[in-house]
């Protein structure tokens, strides 16, 4: 008997990294899972690796596009008949830089990808969950939702905003059997990190990728990046029945980085 038997989850950015960790954890506890990503090939590979048969399906879409985010929610409901757990997990930066040299295009992308995605997905999911009086919204925020490092102003602003959105929404639906929470990971060992870390390091004026890892983990008590499995375990708790009275919480998984 799994902790999520009979539940349906949808996860933006679910083919790799933290989202994939959530998908694997949810599948292991009996859920059916829709994973989203931009790349059909990576989606197919993800499904093959998970080997979950009809219990997992890929939805191709760009999490920075409203139609695709809403499309994922609609697809999950159409495909599996309901949506119990909506993980708005995708996020990141493209060509980030300090405020003084930030382009409008990059700023808009970071707002769409990190903030608007969460609003679009949450609104669509809540419209389905409110009449059913049950549901879980889990947002992957970041320690940057409480801190602020040079060189990533858009990401930082968006994650701060996401935390506020989570708190407001949690209070709106608190008596309807729906919880809304954010997980705030510290630097996490993901594919995204290894792929985009070097460029981020350069944007932040750091000597190397290793210097970036060092910078982001020196603020942590554990002096190492977090692991995907550590984030996924919290998502599972929040998604399960055990999480029913935890809402509006900004749950840290950051090795002791944030000051509050």
């Amino acid at each position, binding site marked *: 008997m799994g902790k999520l038997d009979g539940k349906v989850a949808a996860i933006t950015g679910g083919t790799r990294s933290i989202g994939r960790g959530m998908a694997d954890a949810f599948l292991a506890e009996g859920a059916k899972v829709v994973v989203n990503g931009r790349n059909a090939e990576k989606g197919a590979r993800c499904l093959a690796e998970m080997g979950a048969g009809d219990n997992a399906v890929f939805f191709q879409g760009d999490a920075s596009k409203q139609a695709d985010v809403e499309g994922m929610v609609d697809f999950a409901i159409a495909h599996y008949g309901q949506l119990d757990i909506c993980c708005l997990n995708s996020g990141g930066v493209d060509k980030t830089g300090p405020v003084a040299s930030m382009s409008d295009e990059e700023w808009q992308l970071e707002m769409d990808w990190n903030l608007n995605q969460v609003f679009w997905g949450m609104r669509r999911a809540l419209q389905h969950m409110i009449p059913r009086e049950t549901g879980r919204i889990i947002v992957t925020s970041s320690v940057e939702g409480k801190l602020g490092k040079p060189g990533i102003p858009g990401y930082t602003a968006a994650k701060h905003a996401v935390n506020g959105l989570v708190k407001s929404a949690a209070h709106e639906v608190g008596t309807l059997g729906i919880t809304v929470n954010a997980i705030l990971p510290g630097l996490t060992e993901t594919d995204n990190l290894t792929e985009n870390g070097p460029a981020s390091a350069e944007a932040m004026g750091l000597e190397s990728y290793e210097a970036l890892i060092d910078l982001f983990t020196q603020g942590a*008590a554990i002096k190492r990046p*977090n*692991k995907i499995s550590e984030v996924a*375990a*919290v998502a599972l708790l929040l998604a399960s029945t055990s999480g029913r009275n*935890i809402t*509006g*919480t900004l749950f840290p998984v950051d090795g002791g980085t944030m000051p509050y």
Partner: protein
Amino acid sequence: MGQLEGRVACITGGTRGIGRAVAEAFLREGAQVVVSGRDAAKGAQALAEMGAGDNAHFVVGDVAVREDCEALIQATVDRYGKIDILHANAGGAVDPAPVAAMTDAAMQGTLLVNYWHTFWSMRAALAFMIPQGSGRIIATSSVEGKVGTPGLSNYVVAKAAVNALVRTSAKEVGTLGITINAVCPGAIETDAMLDSAPAAAESMGMTYDALKDMFAQASAIKRLNEVEDVAEVLVLLASDAGAGITGSLISIDGGTSPY
């Protein structure tokens, strides 16, 4: 296979309320558990009800007394050979009153059972965990450690001190395989709340029912929390999956705390 197979846990104030729910959750996940309390009869009753045989043990002690806190940690190691998990859980508010009317005894007594107990137990446990290179310490703090409810200043101050202790100590041992966290539950109608909340309500100029309603209305869920909410978070923090969470003050309060 339980998530805490082979682990030894010590829980202060573990015969009733949150501590008892945590003890049962830890036992279910395969741990051996020592619970403490002031009342030997309640301890015996808790052991009988838990029915865990040799996997559970009771030690009588008063968390307001340093020697008792230290003896409890030693008794855990004597009984099961080590200590992997400390849940510094006991606490409460002694004679709460507005600051203008707060007695020294009420402030001191509340600091003893919440803050000093956590410090003494943590220090004693770390003496074993640091050489061992592993450990989990979890303090039961409160939403009151993050906010300030009028009439409860002694409890608020004590829990805020616990939170500060957790944040600092977590950084001291962060690279040694030891995590230190606090859980901050919202109001839960435990025996401890039934013991102290009527007096708190009186000091705040309201009935006990009105106090409960005030706590519920401050949350998003408009009801009190339950001990099981806390127990599942404790299992996560105590397990391998919790290795990357430290120095955190985790709200389990139905959306009450502002941060």
